[in-house]
Structure formats: C-alpha cells, structure tokens
C-alpha cells in the first residue's frame, strides 16, 4: 500500500491511459502551463507534449469541440475549471454530447470525459462552490460519477476514460489534497461504472452518499457507533446509472435510510434515491427516510452564512437517533 492525494490519483489515471492510447488528449483552461488551477494536471503536459491543451475561455468550444473530436475518432478529456461553469455550454452537454449516439442510431460514439471540480472551498461564494451533479442524472446518454477517495479517484477516472460513452466526472475541490491508500501501481482493482460500494457494514441504518458527502456519512457512522448504533455506509460512486440494487438490499436489511450530499436538498440526487426506495421498498422501512443537503439558498460568501448551508455529521446523528 502507498498513500497519495486525490489529485495525484487522477494524474496517475490520466498518465496510464494516455500512455496506452495516443488518441486520448485533454483540453481546458489553464491545463498546460499551470497544470490545472488545482494542480490536478501537474506533470502531464511534460509527459505528453501536445496532448494537454490550453484553450481560450470558451466553454462551448471546450465541450462542443470535445464532442466533435470524439465524433472524429479521438478520446477527449475536457476540463470545466469549476463545475459551476457547465451552465455556459449546457447545449453542448445535453443536446450534443448526450444525444449523438442515440439520434444517429448508433453510428456515433462519444468517448468523452468531462471533468468538473465542484463543491464549497473556503468562501468561493455563489458561482464557484456548487454541486450540480443532479442536473446531469436527468439526462439519458451521459454517465455521472463522483468518487470520494484517492483510490476511487484513480480507478473511476480510468474507467471513465476507457468508457465509450460520455462520462461527467465530478471531483470535489476539498478532496484534491486529501491522501488515501492505494495498492501498488498495477495491482489496483479496476472499477466498473454503475457499481456502488458498501464501505462499512451495519445492521441498524443505511447511510448513502458520494463524493465529499461521504465525510459526513463516515463521520456520522463513527459517532453513532459510540452509542451502539451500527450504520451501514454506502458510497454510490456512480450516480447515473446508479446501483439501486445495493441500496435496496441494504435498506431491506437495516430498515432505515439516510441520504446525504453537499448539493441543494431540493431536487438533489437524494430525492431520486428516496423516491426509488419509497417505490420499491416502502414496506421494509421502519421510519421515514431522512435526507440531508444544502438549504434552498445560493452559496453565501461570509463564513457565518456559508456555515449555514453546510451539513455536519452531528446533523445526521441527531436525525438518525430520532428514527429509533
């Protein structure tokens, strides 16, 4: 085992896939000279000259150009700087990238990865802090992933790059610097898109999350354990197509479900999980489903205000204790 950061893990994924396949390239703002604004592309421009491309500030080109490159036979990785900026090239995402294969009757494939750094950092305020993953789980034709640790960061990104469908890869900005354990290079287990992982087994309540929300899930499980409540923690990893079976099986065992994400609660992905469990496993539930997410408010700037839109493990603990 070795310890590397989430950002380094993504660099390994890029380097290993790019070394094997000359048609893979990356483009976006500030990638080649800067190595990405969060350092996540560091070293790659030197290792792969001409294949890490600095674009102008032209988001419709970054994504639309990526789709065109994919249609021409390349495998682009495009970077969105901040996930908040995906609003600019939304047509390129949901009318071009997502639809090309279907509407052309299978003639096209779009093996593109859209990397989207998301989430609150330190006072990024309303336009540089959002978690927008739920929007994209509503679009047939794209896959959505959001890993929570360095090992998954690497293996999920490799799977995304090797996938022949477009994949949106949400990478949390706080997680970039966090270290985690990985097996030695070459000994890692490949990830299959669409699979969730039961990270911690338990019998009393199921806590489902992904990306940075997993910090709350793990933190809450630790606190609950002190009080003798055994939480089962599920890391979804892929949000579309998501692993319903793993969640449903867990709920059937624990009879209680708590979902947490950093994104706004209303219309968040938790709503989809909650509705699915209500539809398919209602009779197994011993308590109403609990959902945690940000209140319906833009991300504020001042620290006192920003704190109000964050979720903490204690919030989950309080709610889960009320389920018994």
């Amino acid at each position, binding site marked *: 085992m070795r310890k590397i950061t989430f950002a380094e893990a993504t660099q390994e994924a890029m380097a290993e896939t790019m070394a094997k396949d*000359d*048609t893979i*390239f990356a483009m976006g703002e500030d990638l080649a000279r800067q190595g990405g604004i969060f350092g996540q592309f560091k070293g790659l421009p030197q290792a792969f000259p*001409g*294949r890490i*491309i600095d*674009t*102008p500030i*032209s*988001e*419709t*080109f970054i*994504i*639309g*150009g*990526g*789709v*065109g*490159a*994919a*249609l*021409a*036979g*390349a495998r*682009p990785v495009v970077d969105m700087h901040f996930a908040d900026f995906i609003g600019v090239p939304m*047509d*390129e995402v949901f*009318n*071009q990238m997502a*639809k*090309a*294969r*279907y*509407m*052309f*009757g*299978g*003639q*096209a*494939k779009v093996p593109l990865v859209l990397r989207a750094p998301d989430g609150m950092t330190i006072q990024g305020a309303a336009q540089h802090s959002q978690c927008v993953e739920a929007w994209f789980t509503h679009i*047939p*034709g794209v*896959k959505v992933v959001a890993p929570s640790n360095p090992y998954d960061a690497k293996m999920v990104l490799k799977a995304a790059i090797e*996938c*022949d*469908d477009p994949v949106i890869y949400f990478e949390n900005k706080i997680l970039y610097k966090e270290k985690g354990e990985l097996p030695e290079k070459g000994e890692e287990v490949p990830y299959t898109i669409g699979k969730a992982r039961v990270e911690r087994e338990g019998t009393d309540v199921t806590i489902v999350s992904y990306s940075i929300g997993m910090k709350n899930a793990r933190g809450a499980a630790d606190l609950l354990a002190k009080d003798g409540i055994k939480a089962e923690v599920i890391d979804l990893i892929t949000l579309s197509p998501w692993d319903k079976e793993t969640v449903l099986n867990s709920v059937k065992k624990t009879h209680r479900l708590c979902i947490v994400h950093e994104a706004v609660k209303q219309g968040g992905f938790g709503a989809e999980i909650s509705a699915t469990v209500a539809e398919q496993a209602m009779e197994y539930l011993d308590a109403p489903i609990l959902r945690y997410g940000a209140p319906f408010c833009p991300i504020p700037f001042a620290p006192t205000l920003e704190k109000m839109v964050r979720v903490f493990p204690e919030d989950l603990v309080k709610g889960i204790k009320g389920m018994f």
Partner: protein
Amino acid sequence: MATKTATYTKEQAAQFYETMCTIRKFEETVKHDFLAGEIPGFVHLYIGEEAIATGVCAALRKDDMIESTHRGHGHCVAKGADVKRMMAEIYGKKEGLCQGRGGSMHIADFSVGMLGANGVVGGGYNLATGAALANKMILKNDKVSVVFFGDGASNRGTFHEAMNVASAWKLPVIFVNEMNCWASTTPYRTTCNVENISDRAAGYHVPGVIVDGQDVFAVYEAAKEAVARARAGEGPTFIEAKTYRIEGHFVGDPEMYRDHAETQKIYHDTDPLKMFRQKAAELELMTAAECDELDAKCEQKIKAAKEFALAGEYPDASEYLKYVYVD
C-alpha cells in the same frame, strides 16, 4: 462575387447537375409527402440552395467531415449518402440511416463523413472545429471539416468561440455560411448590422469570401481553394454563399411575414438548376437534352427511394432503449 474561369470535364458538370437535381427531387417529394400527412415530425427544405452543398461537397474527399443544420437533406445527399436510406429515415423506418431514431432533423451518415444534421441552430461550429482539432493535432491526418450554417446561426455565440479557436490554431475547418436572408421568420438585416456576414471573418484573421450561392461552379471554386488552404495547414476559410430561402422555414409554414409572389420571382430568376443549365450550355459542357435525361434519372431515383421507405418497417418498439449507451 468571386468568379473564376476554370475548365471542367463533362463528367464533373454532370455530377454537379445530378447532385443538385437529386436534392431538388428529394425535397419536392418530401414536401409533397409531408403535406399529404405521410411523413411525421417536421421538415425544413433546401430547395433553391442546392448549389451550395453540391459545390462544397464536390471539393471534399469522402473521409472529410461535414456538420449540417436542421435544413440538412441537401448536405447529406451532396456528401454521398444513400437516398433510399435517407428517405427511410425521414419516414421513421428502421432501414433509415439512423434506424428511425433521428428523422429529418438528425439525419446523418457517418460512413460518408456526414456527422449529422443538428436541431440546434449554431450547434455545429464547435463540433466541426473539434473534429478538425482532433484530425490535425491528435490523429495526425489531413482530413478537413466543414460546418454549414445560416445567417441566423451566425448570431450565436458559438460562432465566435469556434472561429476564434479555428483561427488561433489554424485548424482545417471551413465555415460555409448559407446566407439565405431569413432566420426562421425574421429578415436577417433586422437583427444584425452587417450587410455581409463574411465581414466578421476579418475580426478573426480568417479570409472571408463571398460567392454566388446559386452558381455551383463559383461555390466549387471557392470551396476548392478553402480545402487546399485547410489541407496545407493554413487554417480556416469563411465562405459566404449568397442564396435565398425559397420555401417557408418549415413545410407548412404559413409565411405571414413575406410576400409569396416576391419569393417566387426570386426563385424564377435565381434557380440554381436553371442557372446551371444556362452556364453548362454556354461552356458546352452539357446540352438541355442531357440535363433532361438526368432529371428523369433523378426522378426515378427518388421514386425508388420513396418506395424503399414505404416498404420499410418501423423500428421494433421493444428496441427503444437501444443506442442510449454503447455499454
């Protein structure tokens, strides 16, 4: 207008005429069948603009790539798609190019480099420019891509982003503006303050060329030069082909916004097929009788295409999820 004297073979001339005529007959049939209620969805016709797709695509190789528009049948025919499978697609049949998943607005034939019509106006620039980037910088081949777009589409922000990148990196992409004077129901001069859309090309350091879009020879010459520039690594060219949208925005458009008689007069005076016949006779490339023969041939070809479409079957309903994902 750029006019050049060049020599053409009879075969080349016949090819120009046959392609234009195929498009014309195809569109006339689609119009008739749509109005008869046989074709579902909605369709946008290329009648009167045939010389542009024909002239541009004649300058391309089969493995070059084009991005088309919602008015895309002409581009598809000119790039070499099978008209039977085109018609079947417009009828929504499984024998169609897109197996009934796309219809008129998403018609595509990747086997001939036709990367798709696009239901979003101005959606093609970035796709064509991205394809050019991949071909030049990553896949290292000499393929050229073309994006067709109307005057209405030239007001999209995507135009700016794609033109800027294409010029900055000298990408092998050609911007072909079909200046047909109408953005849906709006005359272009009421929403834009340049007489020639190609004037904008200078702002990107891209050569802007104006051609008579009704003259297939003029379009071909401009395209040939642009293709040569692109393949030589000299970057993009902007071609503005002056034309006129003869049909309504879509079939069934009541056209409350313009005078029908005026449109018909323009059609009468500038019909590209008529212009071809005149020029071909002057240059002694084709006689009227030879053109008539091709008219009859194209008519038969489109008749057969329609029969093929009618004989086809709708896709099996159980397969509606096929092609959402590769895996």
